[in-house]
């Protein structure tokens, strides 16, 4: 069998391509299903690879040695919270400071607080206003811990924090919305009924896909925030581990917080710790499921395409019954005939696969060019797409090819 394959691969490939040339339109219709299936695989893979890359970039932008700590698991949530989760008490400012004291592998800690219910107060500067933005009260260490960069002016300091000064540092998006044509430094912005002096502006950050809020941020000193909003209790703690000590820092944070929050020895943590890598991993698991579902759907397209291929191969074999008879009369073995039609089917679907890959590349390029979603065609999807396409030809071409090889030469030669 393999002998026959090697012996005639060139001859059979030539034949298969010739059949494709002779029946261009028919072949095109036949491989349409395979083409669409492969395109879907490539396009879906490229979108998710692109999303994955962007999420990874955005998560790592916070620093790869940073731990995010909240009373619930930071990250993507699916489903409702349990009763135990709903009853958890907020993390406190003192918890944050305690981590800095008691965890030898934690280099620095930032505590962020925010308006827990509803949207933040309206942000205004002269005639312009911004409704949706992140309003954060942060310890001065925050800028360093979450890897913010200073674009202009200065960051607020411990002195600002201790004296509860009404100063603010604003994100790049706020700058472009409120101060399109002027220098924001030194200007007074109002948040609700309070006024803050802009002392600095932040550089652009890498955004999570679909999240426009990354640069739409107003940060004021932690204790200034507390002065105006004494009833806001929730705190988000960010801890930065020493280089290469992330795992150790995580363990220390966990045990210190368990002690501080009086978690029972057998109970699970009453808080959540996450990191850039954990967030990326969580996201990958989530899109892994989506990718799988999409692939199953597109494989239905491939299945339909495969049935079309089987159908056209049966037609082709009936049309060429005499040819098969002649080939057998002059000495073709069964395996020769089998391989001839098998290779023809595989060439057909392989061509569909190549076209599908090209169209998929085009689709991916368009998606990226139109800025709909991030997208990058991963190399594995090209190989998988092509292999699946050829595999479809092999699988659905097998029965027709064996059928052809079993034709009785006498009957085939007399076939009209």
């Amino acid at each position, binding site marked *: 069998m393999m*002998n026959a394959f090697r012996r005639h691969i060139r001859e059979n490939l030539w034949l298969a391509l010739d059949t494709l040339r002779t029946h261009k339109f028919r072949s095109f219709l036949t491989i349409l299903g395979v083409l669409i299936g492969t395109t879907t695989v490539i396009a879906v893979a490229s979108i998710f690879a692109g999303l994955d890359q962007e999420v990874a970039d955005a998560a790592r932008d916070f620093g790869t040695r940073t731990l995010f700590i909240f009373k619930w698991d930071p990250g993507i949530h699916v489903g409702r919270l349990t009763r135990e989760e709903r009853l958890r008490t907020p993390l406190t400012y003192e918890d944050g400071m305690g981590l800095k004291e008691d965890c030898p592998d934690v280099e620095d800690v930032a505590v962020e607080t925010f308006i827990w219910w509803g949207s933040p107060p309206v942000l205004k500067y002269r005639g312009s206003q911004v409704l949706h933005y992140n309003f954060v009260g942060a310890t001065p260490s925050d800028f360093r811990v979450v890897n913010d960069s200073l674009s202009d002016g200065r960051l607020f300091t411990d002195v600002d924090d201790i004296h509860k000064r009404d100063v603010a540092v604003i994100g790049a998006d706020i700058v472009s919305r409120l101060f399109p044509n002027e220098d924001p430094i030194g200007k007074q912005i109002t948040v609700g009924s309070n006024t803050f002096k802009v002392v600095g502006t932040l550089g652009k950050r890498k955004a999570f896909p679909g999240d426009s809020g990354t640069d739409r941020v107003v940060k004021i000193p932690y204790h200034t925030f507390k002065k105006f909003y004494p009833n806001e209790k929730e705190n988000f703690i960010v801890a930065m581990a020493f280089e290469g000590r992330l795992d150790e820092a995580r363990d220390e944070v966990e045990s210190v917080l368990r002690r501080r929050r009086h978690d029972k020895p057998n109970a699970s943590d009453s808080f959540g710790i996450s990191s850039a890598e954990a967030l990326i991993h969580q996201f990958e698991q989530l899109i892994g499921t989506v990718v799988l579902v999409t692939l199953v759907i597109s494989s239905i397209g491939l299945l339909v395409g495969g049935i079309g291929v089987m159908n056209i191969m049966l037609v082709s074999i009936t049309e060429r019954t*005499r040819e098969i008879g002649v080939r*057998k009369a002059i000495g073709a*073995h069964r395996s020769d005939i089998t391989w001839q039609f098998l290779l023809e089917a595989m060439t057909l679907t392989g061509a569909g696969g190549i076209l599908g890959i090209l169209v998929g590349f085009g689709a991916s390029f368009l998606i990226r060019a139109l800025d709909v979603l991030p997208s990058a065609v991963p190399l594995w999807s090209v190989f998988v797409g092509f292999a699946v396409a050829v595999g479809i030809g092999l699988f659905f071409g097998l029965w027709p090819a064996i059928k052809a090889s079993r034709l009785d030469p006498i009957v085939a030669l007399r076939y009209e």
Partner: protein
Amino acid sequence: MGSQVAPALGRDVEGAAPSVIIKTEDLWKTYDMGAIQVNALCGVSFQIERGEYVAIMGPSGSGKSTLMNLIGCLDTPTRGEYWLNGRRVSELTDDELAYIRNKEIGFVFQTFNLLSRATALHNVELPLIYNGTPAAERRARAEEALRTVELGDRMEHKPNELSGGQRQRVAIARALVNRPSIILADEPTGNLDTATGDEIMALFDRLNASGNTIVLVTHEHDIAARARRIIHIRDGKVARDEKTGR
């Protein structure tokens, strides 16, 4: 498969003297038509020697097509023995028969049966492809065969660019290219006008004169008369076996 089949088919010296190419002994072919059994051949025995030019003649329904299928190794007999070039081929498998057809028999059909999408040269190369002849040798031998049938200047033409006579000559070149033991022609002039038919028959005469063994199956007296021996088949039996004196 391919060449490794050959040793398994060792020459059966008992079966035939070296100069005998075809020997059949009491060949029967019975078709099972459900309720009744039809005997297409009822004990056919004859010998054909190397270099002979034999016509097998008979009206339709006489069993000559069945006999041709058996001689051409397209089918196996229900009973009886058949030796081709010293090999007992009456009980071979499909693949072994394919090997024998490739090596020992050159078919010429009434309807030419060329591959319409391939050039004359490629058509002639086909039997060599199936026995794994290297490309360069294949081409050389196919060109030589085409020159033998005087189509040296039509090698790159496709069948639809050739006349009926030329197509049949391509088919004869294809039959010759593997240097078979016999050339088996089934009504080779049936689809040709008389003048072209004569040309083809002249070509067979020439091939026979240069040593090829030819077996011609026909129902036409004029054509059969070109051979040097006629085996008449009637009702599945050899009715008469005569030399024509040519």
